[in-house]
């Protein structure tokens, strides 16, 4: 199962532990996390389900391409990092 890791900056607002979840795309993996932590969703995604403008997501260190529909594929050994983007804030 891929692992989702969140920036420690989120801990100021709510728990966001690293989690191994099912999912073959970035969006599917995040959706699994948010299903058990619904409050976290709005910190990472906007109202339409796209990545927030100032949130960056990497898969094994590479920025995801599809920030709107989150279709970038992930494999069972991949690590998905959810970070603050350096822009803005």
């Amino acid at each position: 199962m891929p692992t989702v890791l969140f920036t420690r900056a989120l801990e100021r607002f709510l728990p966001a532990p690293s989690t191994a979840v099912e999912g073959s795309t970035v969006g599917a993996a995040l959706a699994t996390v948010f299903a058990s932590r619904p409050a976290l969703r709005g910190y990472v995604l906007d109202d339409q389900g796209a990545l927030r403008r100032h949130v960056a997501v990497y898969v094994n260190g590479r920025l995801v391409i599809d920030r709107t529909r989150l279709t970038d594929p992930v494999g069972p050994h991949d690590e998905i990092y959810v970070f603050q983007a350096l822009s803005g804030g």
Partner: protein
Amino acid sequence: MANRLHVATRKGLFELAREYDIWEVTDVQFLGDPVSAVLADADGTVYAALDLGHFGAKLWRRDPVGAWQELAPPAFPSKPPDAGDDPHPWSLGKIWVIEPGGSAGRLWAATMPGGLFRSDDGGRSWSLNEALWHMPERRQWSGVAGGEQPGIASVLVDPRNPSDIRIGVSTAGVWASADGGVSWRNINRGMYAEYMPPERREEPIAQDVHRLARCAAYPEIVWCQHHNGVFRSEDAGATWHELTAIRPSKFGFAVAAHPRDPDTAWFVPAVKDERRIPVDGKVVVARTRDGGRSFEVLRKGLPQHHAYDLVWRHALAVDASGERLAFGSTSGGLWISEDGGDSWTMPEARLPPIAAVRFAAS
């Protein structure tokens, strides 16, 4: 008179209390985070909206007795495919103001990009006012601060009839609903927009209504600080006449209306948009007590040398007595008056830039 004041700043929410004639900071919440709006409801509940740079707009609530808890903020519905050409995003940008709705549990949250949301359960759940959002005219609303998202800056609920609502929009004029938000009309006549081409100067929807304030005892009386002038309405926002006596300038953001005297209001004028600083580097408050025919310029206790404080839309407030006022600035200046604005004192604090000030109800 209100003995507590909430101050929403770029770096947290500050609560001040008045004890032995002195105002002091007694509580700090959300330290380090931008607070975009605050409401102290009549029942003692406090609501605070955060505008987190990375993680979006958030909403918190503190019960009269209890700790702060996060609530699910207002959210826009899924954008349908046929709305692809909507110039404004279907996602919450910022909660700009939260107002009580006039009945138990009801609140209005006014936002960028121009969505108005209602809660009937003390902020625990929110629904978008679909009538306003789906109006074709809403796509003509234009943005504030250089063409970004439009924002609803004011929500006036008639204290006699909570279904009678006015909103002021930057930039789209004044909109009215007589049926609790089922239908809306753009009602303002008599304003003009210097920033528009001549043929569009008087269009109601082109008016940048920075802020509206209503006399609680005489709700037909509404005051407006507009982008290029100060206006007053005696028919709840339908027709407006300009108050050309305003001094020292006609530009500004904030206005406060006396809760009982329909002829008294306060403004904080500034040099207009090219610079946005106080006139001659002196912070002053303009007060009228004769319905806008004349204005006094109040400066006792306010900085008069090299002061460059700007006061945003929601950063001037008057309490229910009409005697106690407060305003806060982009430089973190905070001044409180106990005598209707005649004189001002500054609490012992150097605060972050201030977005909003709000007195507790009691």
